[in-house]
C-alpha cells in the first residue's frame, strides 16, 4: 500500500468522523429546539397546554332535561340551528311498567320538536304523563375527547388531532369532508356540516377553557349536572367528583379511552 493511498484513507476517515459529529450535533440541536417551551399563540399568553389535562364529568342523577346546555352550546359554537345537528345533546331513558327495554328519545324526535314549537328551540315533551313510568332519567352526551381517538386515527389529512391538554380539535381548513371520522366515532359525537363541507363536533369550548372559562354548557346548566376541570389539579371540581364517586365512562370496551365521566347511568345507557 503506497503512502498516497494511506493518506487518502486517513482523510476519508477524518471526513466521516466530522460528518458523524455534525449529524449528531444537528440531531441534538433539533431535539433541544423541540423541547423548548414552544406552544401555540393562545389569546391568553399565560396558557400552557402542557400543564393541563382537561376532563368532563356528568352527574346524570341531577340532570332535569331542561336543555339549556343544548341551546347554550348552539349559540356559543354556531351549531346549525335545527333539531338534527348537535355538539351536545340530552337523551331521555324511560322504562315503562311491564317493558324490558327503555324508550329513548332526544331532541330530534318529532314529538319533542312539536313540544318546543320550533326546530331552533329545545324541550322534552311531557309524553309519558299518562303512562306508568317505572324508572326514567336524562343523560347528557357530548364528545368524549378520547385518549386514543379513533376519529384522529382515520383522518387522512391530519385535520383532526389531539392537543397536549387533551382535547380533540378539527382544523376546518384541512378537513376535506370525507366523513371517515363521523363513521369511526363510536359515540356519534361528530356531525357533518354540508354547507361548509366540514365535520364538526364538541371541543369542550376550547376557546373558553383556554381563557380560564367554563364550557358554555357547564355555564348554562342550572343544576350543576355538568362539570369541567383539570385532572392535574387534584382539587378541581372534576378531580374531586371522579375521586369521590364511582364513575363510569361510555363504551370503555372500544379502547378509545373516553374522558367524560358519568355518575348515575343505568345498564342500558351506551
Amino acid at each position, binding site marked *: 500500500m503506497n503512502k498516497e493511498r494511506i493518506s487518502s484513507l486517513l482523510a476519508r476517515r477524518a471526513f466521516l468522523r466530522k460528518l458523524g459529529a455534525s449529524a449528531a450535533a444537528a440531531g441534538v440541536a433539533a431535539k433541544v429546539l423541540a423541547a423548548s417551551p*414552544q406552544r*401555540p*399563540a*393562545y*389569546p391568553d399568553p399565560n*396558557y400552557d*397546554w402542557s400543564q393541563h389535562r382537561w376532563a368532563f364529568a356528568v352527574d346524570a*342523577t*341531577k*340532570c*332535569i*332535561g*331542561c*336543555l*339549556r346546555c343544548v341551546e*347554550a352550546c348552539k*349559540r*356559543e359554537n354556531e351549531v346549525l340551528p335545527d333539531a338534527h345537528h348537535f355538539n351536545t345533546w340530552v337523551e*331521555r331513558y*324511560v322504562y315503562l311498567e311491564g317493558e324490558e327495554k327503555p324508550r329513548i328519545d332526544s331532541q330530534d324526535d318529532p314529538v319533542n320538536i312539536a313540544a318546543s314549537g320550533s326546530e331552533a328551540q329545545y*324541550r*322534552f315533551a*311531557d309524553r*309519558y*304523563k299518562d303512562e306508568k*313510568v317505572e324508572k*326514567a*332519567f*336524562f343523560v347528557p352526551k357530548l364528545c368524549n375527547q378520547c385518549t386514543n381517538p379513533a376519529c384522529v386515527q382515520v383522518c387522512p389529512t*391530519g*385535520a*383532526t*388531532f*389531539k*392537543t*397536549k391538554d387533551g382535547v380533540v*380539535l378539527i*382544523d376546518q*381548513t*384541512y378537513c376535506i369532508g370525507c366523513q371517515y371520522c363521523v363513521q369511526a366515532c363510536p359515540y356519534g359525537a361528530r356531525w357533518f356540516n354540508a354547507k361548509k363541507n366540514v365535520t364538526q363536533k364538541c*371541543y369542550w369550548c*376550547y*376557546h*373558553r377553557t*383556554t*381563557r380560564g*372559562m*367554563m364550557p*358554555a354548557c357547564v*355555564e*348554562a*346548566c*342550572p*343544576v*350543576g349536572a355538568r362539570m369541567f376541570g383539570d385532572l392535574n389539579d387534584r382539587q378541581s371540581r372534576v378531580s374531586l367528583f371522579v375521586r369521590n364517586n364511582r364513575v363510569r365512562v361510555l363504551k370503555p370496551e372500544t379502547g378509545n379511552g373516553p374522558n367524560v365521566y358519568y355518575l348515575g347511568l343505568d345498564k342500558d345507557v351506551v
Partner: protein
Amino acid sequence: MPKHIVRLTVLLFCGLFFALVMKWAFTAPSFYQYGHYRGDAVAEMASRKVAYQGAASCRSCHSERLAQWSAGSHKSVNCETCHGAGAEHPAKAQLAIPEDSRKLCSLCHQKMAERPRAQPQIDLAQHGAAQQCVVCHDPHSPKLAGVVAAVRGDASAGHAKHAETCAGCHGEQGLSDNDAWPNLAGQNAAYIVHRLAAFKSGAQKDPMMSTMAQALGSADIQNLATYYGAASCAAPAKGRVTEEGKALAKNCAACHGEKGEGVNPAWPRLAGQKPGYLADALKAFRAGLRKDPTMSGIARSLSDADISSLASYYAAQSCSIPLARKLP
C-alpha cells in the same frame, strides 16, 4: 451503466424532486410543529369568539340584581341561562327579559317523572291558573314568603287581650264597625302573626297599629292570632259581585282562593273582608307604602276602578268557606 437505466433513474429523481417541491409548497408551515397537524389550528380554535360571558361580567352594572339572585334559591342558575348569551351586551344589544315566563320556567319546573325528585316541579294544569309565573314568583329569588310557623297560643287569653286592647276598633267579635278597618275574626292565624310582627318591628307602619303592636309581647301575638283564627266570621256580606270583579279575581285565585277563602295560611283570607280596607290595602301596595314582593307588582297593574270592583267582589263573598288547602 446502460443508457436506459440512467434515463429511468433520472426520471425517478425528477419525479421525487417534483413531489418534494409540491409537498413543501402545499404543506402549511406549521404542519408537524406539534404533530401530524397544522400547529396554527390550535391557536385559531382557541381564538374563537366567546358568547357566554358568565355571571361575574354582569356584576359591574347589575350588582343589586346579582345580590338578590345570589341570596335566593336560583343562585345555581346563571344570568345567561334565562337571558341568553351576553356577547353583544351592552355594546350592541339588549338582553331579553323573557316574555313568556310560563314557557321558560316550565322548561325546568314542569312536573315530569323523568326529573329527579329533588327538583321543584309543578303540575302546569293545576298550578297558577295559566298565569305568568312572574306574577307571584320573583324569578331572581323565586321562593315565596309563605313560610308558616305553627301558631300555638291560648285562645281564651287571646280573647281577653282582644277585649282589652283591640275590640274598640275591630269590634267585640273581631268584626269591625268601620269600613276602613279590617275584620279579624276567621282570618288565618299565621297571617295575623306575620302582620302583628311586622307592625311591631316597624317593617309595616300604621299610626294606630304600630304603637298597639309595640305593646304586645310575642305570647300576646300568638294568643291573639289563635283567638282570631278560631273565631267565627259569620257577618252579613257587604259588597256586590260585578263581572269585572269576578274576572279580575281570577288573577288572585292562585294564592287567595277562588272566592278569597285563602289557600295558604301565610296569606290572608279576603272573603267577607271590609271593602274599604281591601281597597286601601291595594292602594298602599300600589303606592309602595306597604311592601310585598308579590303584591307590589300585582297592585301596580290595577286601576282605581279595578281596585274597587275587586274589593267589593271579595267583600260580597261569605267568609265561612273553609280554607281550600292546608299546607303539606
